[in-house]
């Protein structure tokens, strides 16, 4: 056998293109096509207003403008509200926007009119000529205003409450009442956003000769976009192809579909008979894509002398923005995943999902887990502080133990399945983390730094992440007569390294050279049944499907090769694309097997000529047997019974400047368990990226809305995404590999993990350095300074909570 690639640090084949600027993103497509038209969107300048009148009469006078649409120009399904993608029985008041606003706007940035012109400059000139009369309405901005409900976002949604959902296992309130100790905490997390390098973008081309529509979109789900474009434009699904080219990051925001532009661009292409492009600019991305994270939580916990949680009652309020196209996924994840690696004896959670006149909310890497982790880990720290115990000891007391898997929480997860953890070894992970960060030696460091007038603190946070959610993903593996292997899977790629990781699986499973494998993702022409890339599911779902499909191709290859070589299948090996009979020198190339698999043997290549020396098939039967197909292919789908649960633990040592209140990261340590690693380098890259994004979320990034609903920092000058100078220069990583029993490769997802514990771990470390509770994130030096003033008098303020 050649070296097994599964588990090897194979360099990413994508990077040659990406790092040399040779990626092909949506905005690169058709750029030299002289017929290409460009779109721009008039967006609401007001957070809440009725539209009295829209006057577009000056627009078409402008040279180079081809068309303008408002809601009144839309017909049929296009004039209906956009779909509510994930309904839920608790979402009793779901609302979605129109592709172009009808009568009312509910956030700054909501699309009102759509202009198509010869270039984007002219299109923007045209947008500035549209006159809209608004009747200004008082906006609802922020959770406090939404809860107060003195004003409503939607007149027909009382209390601004879109949904109220409650789950309980045991009797939490009774358990808390009976517990020896109780604590009450109020914990807030602010709005932030994914901010991928590439914003949204769509190109569409209508081919009148074949009556086919081709749509390229920077999406996390090409099949989803295909379905909604066909339905909204009244086209047969078979007439619509959606292709996802290179995508410059998604992080969740691109899982929403259809965006208004994703429908309007194809509509314009069909109407005008010319290709049309929309490329979102950065300001548009801030005010008209999606945000996440804003939640307020109230925690009551009861525990015993060891810190064992006897009852946990969490109520929280989730700000979902102006509409609910993505349902309740984020707050449901918070409500279930905040449990982390722990097993509170009794748990109750209630949330309300609230309307505000701000940008919609959809999952952002972590998707509700960072808030849940913040809540649970702050609670663990508060218990430890209250009891005067080491924070790791309290966590150990509450861990689910390795012999308790599968562990049932008695709750329903976001996928509608029981919340059941498949595997993990939390005590082992914690032991590794303590070693990695130097937990037990930290007091020496603290003393040493204090002697220099420096202030340091350490924190840790643990999380469990449900990954690889269903319902399914599929794969098609095709061995060409050249021996090259073409693989298609339907989910999309946003830079994760799927071409590399999936090819590793194929090379091992099928027995071919890594270089001979080519992976296609996100192209509905190649794989029309697919779900998408989100929820840390690509490796688990498509990785498993590709493995299963490659096994099918292998089975067929062995069957044909055995016949050709007159040997038993059991005696055959496939190495580097060559089938050989063990212990002999008889061989046949997979490409030749591919020729033999197809009775139509036109001799086009060397493999076809080589095939003439072999005989397969029974001359007394049809050339393609009843249960067979021509071609050396394998196709299969993977559909798991439920999610697989990865886990990890982060620790950070921070320094807080006694004078300036600046926060510096001295050490960042990660222990990560996502089952078997396909490619450790890619997993570590995911962790690095997640930690960097988490540093941003904890210490720099936030969405600053004023009371009128204007986003005050809608640029990278004021939305402080960290530079490379702000993230740790090194991240110490250690892995556990506790395999999942739920899929053939024993893998779990890794994409979101790095960002989940950031708010929790930084709050813990800053609190440890400062000696007063940190209950709201993110935190800036200015805010830390204000907290110092607030706590200047309480010299013994150490315990979090009350």
């Amino acid at each position, binding site marked *: 056998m050649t070296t097994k690639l599964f588990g090897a640090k194979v360099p990413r084949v994508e990077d040659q293109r990406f790092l040399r600027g040779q990626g092909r993103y949506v905005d690169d497509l058709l750029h030299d096509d002289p017929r290409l038209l460009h779109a721009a969107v008039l967006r609401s300048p007001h957070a809440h207003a009725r539209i009295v009148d829209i006057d577009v009469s000056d627009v078409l006078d402008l040279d180079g403008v081809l068309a303008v649409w408002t809601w009144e120009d839309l017909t049929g399904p296009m004039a209906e509200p956009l779909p509510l993608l994930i309904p839920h029985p608790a979402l009793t008041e779901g609302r979605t926007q129109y592709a172009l606003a009808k009568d009312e706007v509910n956030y700054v940035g909501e699309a009102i009119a759509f202009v198509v012109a010869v270039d984007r400059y002219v299109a923007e*000139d045209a947008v500035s000529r549209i006159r809209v009369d608004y009747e200004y309405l008082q906006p609802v901005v922020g959770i406090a205003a939404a809860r107060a409900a003195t004003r409503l976002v939607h007149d027909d949604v009382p209390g601004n409450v879109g949904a109220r959902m409650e789950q309980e296992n045991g009797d939490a309130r009774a358990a808390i009442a009976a517990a020896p100790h109780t604590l009450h905490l109020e914990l807030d997390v602010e709005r932030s956003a994914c901010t991928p390098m590439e914003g949204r973008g769509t190109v569409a081309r209508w081919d009148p000769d074949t009556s086919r529509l081709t749509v390229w979109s920077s999406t996390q789900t090409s099949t989803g976009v295909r379905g909604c474009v066909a339905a909204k434009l009244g086209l047969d699904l078979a007439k619509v192809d959606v292709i996802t080219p290179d995508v410059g990051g998604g992080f969740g925001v691109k899982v929403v579909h259809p965006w208004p532009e994703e429908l309007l661009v194809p509509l314009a292409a069909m109407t005008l008979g010319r290709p049309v492009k929309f490329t979102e600019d950065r300001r*548009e991305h801030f005010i008209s894509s999606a945000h996440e994270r804003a939640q307020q939580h109230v925690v009551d916990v009861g525990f015993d002398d060891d810190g064992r949680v006897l009852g946990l009652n969490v109520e929280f309020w989730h700000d979902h923005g102006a509409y609910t196209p993505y349902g309740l996924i984020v707050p449901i994840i918070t409500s279930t995943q905040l449990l982390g690696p722990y097993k509170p004896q009794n748990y109750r959670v209630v949330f309300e999902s609230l309307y505000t006149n701000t940008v919609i909310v959809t999952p952002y890497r972590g998707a509700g887990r960072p808030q849940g982790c913040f809540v649970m880990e702050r609670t663990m720290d508060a218990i430890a502080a209250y009891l005067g115990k080491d924070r790791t000891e309290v966590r150990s007391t509450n861990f689910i133990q390795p012999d308790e898997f599968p562990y049932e929480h008695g709750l329903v997860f976001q996928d509608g399945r029981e919340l059941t953890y498949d595997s993990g070894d939390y005590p082992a992970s914690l032991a590794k983390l303590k070693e990695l960060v130097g937990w037990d030696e930290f007091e020496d460091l603290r003393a040493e730094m204090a002697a220099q007038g420096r202030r340091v603190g350490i924190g840790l946070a643990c999380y469990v992440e449900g990954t690889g959610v269903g319902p399914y993903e599929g794969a098609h593996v095709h061995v060409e007569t050249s021996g090259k292997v073409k693989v298609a899977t339907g989910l999309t790629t946003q830079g994760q390294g799927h071409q590399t990781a999936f090819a590793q699986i194929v090379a091992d499973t099928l027995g071919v050279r890594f270089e001979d494998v080519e992976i296609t993702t996100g192209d509905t022409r190649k794989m029309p049944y697919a779900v998408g890339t989100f929820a840390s599911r690509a490796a688990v779902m498509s990785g498993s499907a590709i493995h299963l499909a490659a096994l099918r191709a292998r089975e067929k290859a062995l069957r044909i090769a055995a016949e050709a070589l007159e040997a038993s299948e059991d005696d055959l090996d496939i190495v580097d694309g060559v089938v050989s009979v063990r212990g002999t020198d008889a061989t046949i190339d997979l490409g030749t097997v591919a020729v033999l698999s197809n009775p139509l043997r036109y001799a086009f290549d060397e493999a076809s000529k080589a095939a003439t020396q072999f005989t397969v098939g029974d001359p007394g039967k049809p050339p393609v047997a009843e249960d067979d197909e021509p071609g050396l292919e394998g196709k299969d789908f993977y559909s798991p019974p439920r999610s697989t649960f990865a886990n990890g633990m982060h620790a950070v040592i921070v320094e807080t400047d006694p004078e300036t209140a600046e926060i510096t990261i001295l050490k960042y340590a990660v222990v990560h368990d996502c089952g078997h690693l396909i490619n450790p380098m890619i997993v570590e890259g995911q962790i690095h990226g997640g930690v960097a994004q988490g540093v941003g979320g904890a210490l*720099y990034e936030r969405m600053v809305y004023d009371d009128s609903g204007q986003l005050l920092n809608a640029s990278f000058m004021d939305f*402080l995404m960290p530079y490379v100078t702000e993230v740790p220069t090194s991240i110490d990583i250690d892995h556990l590999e506790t395999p999942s029993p739920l899929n053939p490769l024993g893998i779990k997802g890794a994409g979101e993990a790095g960002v989940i514990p950031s708010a929790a771990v930084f709050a813990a470390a800053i609190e440890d350095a400062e000696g007063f509770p940190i209950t709201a994130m993110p935190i800036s*030096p200015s805010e830390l*300074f*204000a907290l110092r003033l607030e706590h200047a008098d309480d010299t013994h303020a150490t315990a979090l909570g009350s």
Partner: protein
Amino acid sequence: MKPAPFAYLRPSTLEEALAALAGEQGAKVLAGGQSLVPLLSMRLAAPSMLVDINALPGLGDVTCDASGVRVGALARHAEVLASVAAAEVQPLLAMALSHVAHPTIRNRGTTVGSLVHADAAAEMPMVLQLLGGSVDVASVRGRRTIPAAELFAGPLESTLAHDEIAVEASFPALPAGAGVAFQEIARRHGDYALVGVAALVETDGDDVTRVRLGFVSVSDVPVVVDVTDAVRDPAGDPAARALAELEPADDIHATAAYRAHLVKVLVPKVLAAATDHARQGKDA
């Protein structure tokens, strides 16, 4: 994020550029473009014409002599920062320039452009003000020199007339026995400072004769405060003296109280550093 339509002119002589400016009320000068181009792209500015001065001859030099450093209108921040002679004649230039944005922006942005953009959150207007420098401007009506004290009219507003082009800035040399220092606190490396403080300390032997402080981001226009008395008084509080003339404000990144606190933190540090610098002489 595409600019509104504008006419574009790239003259090859200063006379041509000045005539174009004089003839077009809505014209703007384009040099490095690091502030203007984003404003255009966001349609926060919509000039009828851009007069691109990048092809004008003789405006790119950084020249130094005993009296000071003269910076041409097309000299990039990076070029001024890289000038060893400039750093010797007036060390505060390099100290402050290393905090101006990021290398890619310094490669394109011009120091003179930054001065006439007159942003009180930028380092170089304050430096010019603290050092008592000046800017030479030209128009079809002739040339004049605007002292720093008369250059800054208000937030993002200089006293240049619409038809004037700033052709050169002069930063006086560091006097014998004087020292300078600069420190700032920013949210991220290269961001506009939350607070920046520069000090110019003049000494005569062991005697501190004159002390002035320049501030970034704690006022609407670049502010320089003479704190000589507060420094010479053993019970004096130079930071408090300075704060009396500053107007720190709340914004989305920091409160006014935090900015005032940073003034108090930074002032003693830069005073100590500038005093050390003065005592070490020009070799420091």
